[in-house]
């Protein structure tokens, strides 16, 4: 097998004009998307074309026993009951009553074994679909989705992480895909950094100085123009577009009733923001909820946390399903691992990567499906064991990508997902 180096063969060289052509088309498509939000028909059209992903990361490691795989009345089950859901025969924890009504939109993977009980490593493998190996780093799902799915050259970022605390900027999670696919972090769930025009500068003056900038650029372009100079000038145009669309990051534009339905707590507001972003054509949004690291008082913590989660999550699922966007939007609820069936002396549960669950839904997944099974006390997977690699392949397949495909990174073909994994076929519709 020989490598044909794209960077050296004229056939593969990116002709600048083609590059620009794509940019133009991408911008147009996206612009259509924004304008289209007014009409539900157009929203549906956008929905069918563009695939999206939303991840809820339950940081610290949520308990599968208090969520997706309850074992009531067993030595490991804890105090909570299991309740029926909108899927006949499927029971989940009583801590998720509203989510139970949405289960027919979702699917469960109950046989996850990642063999990893360390927070950092567990998070890494769930977010990248690969085990951390020294000397190499892999892009997170959001970066992969942004590269593979997001329209090129759009004003809005393809990869967004909503952060609980302040701050923002660009995160370092795209590895070899390059920083253009790194997450734009929205500190405190606000708009991207620097997206507001400075007070003293009026819109008119800004237009004037930008016109001046363009004329300088046009003059230089007559001497020399490259894909890089075009990308650079284009980034300023994208910035201006983003400033125009800044209000999509503002959830106060949503009716009070809707805000209440999602919950006025941080998770609720962030889930609502996530919905707004997905509606506006952003490819990947990650929200996180913490802290689930319940070595002490596992049950009290879950009682409290799951209350928040249940309301916000079920509202998000319901809205996506109702608008038709769910057909093209993949939902993932993940943690770095689950929690031990054994209840420790502090009524806590500890780290547990051996037999836990992930909740998925939407896009190309079977609705209401359950794959994998643990034993009666939840101490081992007894059917259809899968790991992070299978899950990652499944995510990609669910949004219509060939999970065994490759990215061309500066002429180097690099597999999108771990070579040893496979998608969970029974989950795919």
């Amino acid at each position, binding site marked *: 097998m020989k490598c044909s180096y794209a*960077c050296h063969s004229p056939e593969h*060289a990116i002709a600048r*004009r083609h590059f620009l052509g794509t940019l133009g088309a991408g911008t147009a498509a996206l612009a259509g998307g924004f304008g289209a939000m007014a009409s539900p028909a157009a929203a549906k059209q956008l929905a069918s074309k563009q695939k999206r992903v939303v991840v809820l990361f339950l940081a610290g490691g949520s308990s599968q026993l208090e969520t997706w795989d309850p074992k009531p009345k067993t030595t490991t089950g804890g105090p909570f009951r299991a309740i029926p859901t909108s899927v006949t025969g499927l029971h989940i924890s009583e801590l998720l009553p509203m989510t139970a009504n949405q289960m027919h939109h979702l699917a469960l993977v109950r046989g996850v074994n990642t063999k990893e009980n360390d927070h950092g490593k567990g998070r890494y493998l769930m977010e990248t679909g690969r085990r951390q190996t020294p*000397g190499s780093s892999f892009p997170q799902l959001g970066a992969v989705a942004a590269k593979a799915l997001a329209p090129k050259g759009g004003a809005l970022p393809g990869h967004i992480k909503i952060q609980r605390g302040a701050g923002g900027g660009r995160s*370092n999670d795209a590895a070899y895909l390059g920083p253009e696919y790194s997450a*734009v972090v929205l500190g405190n769930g606000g708009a991207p950094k620097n997206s507001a025009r400075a007070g003293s500068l009026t819109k008119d003056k800004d237009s004037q100085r930008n016109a001046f900038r363009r004329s300088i650029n046009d003059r230089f372009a007559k001497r020399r123009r490259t894909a*890089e*100079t075009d990308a*650079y000038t284009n*980034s300023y145009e994208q910035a201006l577009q983003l400033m125009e669309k800044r209000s999509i990051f503002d959830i106060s534009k949503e009716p009070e009733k809707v805000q209440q339905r999602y919950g006025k707590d941080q998770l609720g507001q962030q889930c609502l923001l996530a919905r707004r972003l997905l509606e506006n054509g952003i490819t990947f949004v990650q929200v996180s909820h913490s802290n689930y690291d319940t070595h002490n008082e596992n049950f009290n913590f879950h009682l409290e946390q799951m209350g928040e989660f249940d309301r916000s999550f079920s509202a998000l699922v319901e809205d996506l399903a109702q608008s038709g966007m769910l057909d093209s939007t993949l939902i993932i609820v993940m943690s770095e691992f689950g929690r031990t069936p054994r209840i420790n002396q502090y009524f806590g549960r500890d780290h547990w990567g051996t037999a836990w669950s992930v909740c998925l839904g939407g896009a190309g997944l079977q609705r209401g499906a359950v794959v994998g099974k643990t034993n009666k006390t939840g101490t081992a997977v007894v059917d259809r064991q899968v790991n992070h690699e299978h899950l990652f392949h499944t995510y990609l397949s669910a949004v219509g990508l060939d999970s065994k495909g490759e990215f061309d990174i500066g002429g180097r073909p690099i597999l999108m997902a771990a070579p040893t994994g496979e998608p969970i076929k029974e989950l795919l519709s």
Partner: protein
Amino acid sequence: MVFRAGHLIALLMVVVLVEQSRAAEKSSRTDSPLHQKIDRMIRAANVGENEGVCNDSEFLRRLYLDLTGTIPSVSVAKIFLDDQTSDKRAKLIDRLLASPEFARHMARRFDVTLMERRGDKLIKTAQWREYLFQSFLSNKPYDQLAREILGADGVDPKLRPAARFYLDRNGETNLLTRDVGRKFFGKDFQCAQCHDHPLIDDYLQADYYGLYAFLNRSHLFVDAKKKTFFAEKGEGGVTFTSVFEPEEGKKTTRPRLPGQKQIDEPKFKKGEEYKVKPAKNVRPIPKYSRREKLALLATSGKNRAFNENIANRLWAQLLGRGIVHPVDLNHSANPATHPKLLRLLADDLVAHKFDIRYLLREISLSATYQKAIDSPADMEQQATRATATLAELEAKQKPLETALEKASAAAIKLSDQSDAAQAEIAGLEKNHVTLAAALAKSLANLDKQTAARDKTKKDQAARRKLATSLNELAKKASQAALQLPQDKEFVAAAGVLVNRAAKVNAELTSLGNQLTNQETLLKKAGQDLATAKASATGSNQKLVALRKKHAQPYETAMEQVRVARLALEVHKQRIVGANVFARYAKALRAADESATVIAKVRSQEAATLASLAQVGAAMQQAEKDRSAANAARDAAVAKAAQSQQAAKTKQDARDSLHAALAASKAALVKLPGDAVVLEAVAKLESRSDQVSLECTTMQKTAQTDVGMSLKVAQVAVQMQKKRDDMAGDMARLQTEQQALAKTMAKVQAESEPKKSAVLDSRDVLDQRMGRRFTVGSLKSLSPEQLAWSTMQAVGMIDVQRTAEIAAWTKKSKQPYKNTLDQQREIEKAVHAKIRPREGAFVATFGAGGGQPQNEFFATVDQALFFANDGTIRTMIGHSGNNLSARLNKMTDTKVLAEELYLAILTRRPAADEVEQVAAYLAGRKTDRSAAIQEIIWGLISSTEFRFNH
């Protein structure tokens, strides 16, 4: 044949002269400075020709950014641009290379290259950068720098920062293996960690583990004071298995540098590997350090990958891309664009003792470095010329392929032989170990025997001394006893003495015998040793010879394969290059042809249109003629009718007169001679005659008029026909014109893809010329260059410098004279103040920590940073004597524009640019200072600012 001596001598003279002149030519070529050689090599292997040299402004900006990491200040720019001396470029190169800013820039570059913006861990970035800064300030040879980093353990406080490369990667062997490979050998072996690289023939798993073996004994060591060092064990091997070919089983390797053999190493007995043995809280020190060996071998000047890596990286620093690019992917499938040049640079750098300044100086002096960014004007002619060479080039490929096949076959054959020899070598190695053991045993035996003999000798000497005194005493006592026979006691004592002496004598004899015995044994042991030594040496020689016999030809053969492969790749590249030109030429031709067709259709269209116009005009005339004829006809007809009518009236009058006359005459018959009647008849007769006459005339007139009207009617008919004919022509022409318009639309549509094919192929060609260094490249500023250049442009750095100089003058109570020492002081102070401001730029424009840092990317957040971030706003805003404040004071727009352009783009503005600035400010009389800041913003966010250097 008979030669006369004279002839022969003359002939020889000629030969000698020719040889001499050839040698002179050759030596002048080899002796010429490196920068001239660079230009020759680039020209010899280029794609297209371009003699365009950048102007002084561009040279100044380029050199400042490449050597000091920032653009020059306005005053520097003015002085340089106005300097009329011819060697000002060379002088500037030397001045910048000697400046502290150069050392600072190199330290930044090397930091980013080696550490890839990892956060502080065990060694602070500031200390590490200071170490690098001092290294470049003193022009430390690169081999020494690399030796310090690769051999670092963090123990020597002076060199502790050098350990950051290892320590801040947590001493993780796989990570270090990859990064040592990438950063010091230009080879990213990552894919070869688990198997031979699937796509690259010469990235082998054995290469990876060869490097790995230098490093896997090393580990982090934390001492009792919680200080971390990079320690090394004295034992530990490397085994690896290919995940692709697990059936091949485990393989082992000793350390091995890329492209070289496994190294020979001293062997120690178990337990004797250490100078300081590992223990709790004790940092082990092995007698033999593999890491030290790595540092020594890599930097010896003999490892080509190491030498070429640094030469390539320095080249890339100035030219914007490596001769091998990306700089860490040096392998046969991604060959150097100019392999001979790369080799020359590397060899010359080694010959100049790894003097980095030397190499940078030579490259900067080359015309290749000083090329303009504009592509040559005669690309079309060049394309035609290149196309002509294509067939010839393609024909030459086959022999090169054959050569490669031949070389490969030879290498494979040798490899098979070598495999067979491996068994023999292994046997010999085993045997050699036995022999070595025997040798050691004889040596030990000899030592033991020698010790025994020495002891005997010592004993013998002691006994002999005792015996001598005893014998003497016994003798004297015996003599005394003879004289005192009655003293029994004495006699007895003498007897005891004699006996004792006899016993000691006997012992002495015995010792003598023992010694003889031992000497014999010792001699034998010596002989044994000699034998063992001889066989060990023999076996070793055999082994060395065997290794040499098989390894060397194999290595030579592999080298030949490499050379052949490289030659083929280079040739292929040349074909690709010619093809790129050919494609451009073809696209141009196709576009030309299509333009010709369009022109033809257009001319037909024009002709038709002209005819149409002509016919139209003629038809208008005909129409006019026809109308005139019709009018004439109508007039004539009317006139004829009128004449006829008049004649008829006259005729009627005449007829009435005739009737009246006839009646009168009849009356006369009845009334003959009636005078009245007679008079009436006479009057009527005269009247009738007159009227008849009139009638005849009028009838004639009427006849003429009718004739005339017929004639005119005929003309009208002719005119009508002429007009009808013309209408036919017109319709035909119109149809023709419509058809032509259709054809035109078609050929124009067909020409569109041809036009874009020209643009696309030109794009590819431009890119390729850039890659082959035929045109100056556009290099995006690194985050640090962007930070410093922005701060320089807006005047922040100058303001800071002025303040520091004032502070220095005040403190030292000396005038500032810009000596090198003073420059260093000021640079240090300015750097300390400005450096913290880099952060915002680096966070926005740099890739994440631990990721490759050399790829350009443009994202919305960067543009938003420039557009709205307070950092930029504050920098542009008025402060002290910064750019904004200076411009605000200038009333003459021309002066203002010059200051603005020199400060930001290092050039003077063109006339229309001055006008543009004037126009911008003209509308902003009330908020001029805001307008000035907007203009500054427009320039620092322009592509020219971001890319042109």
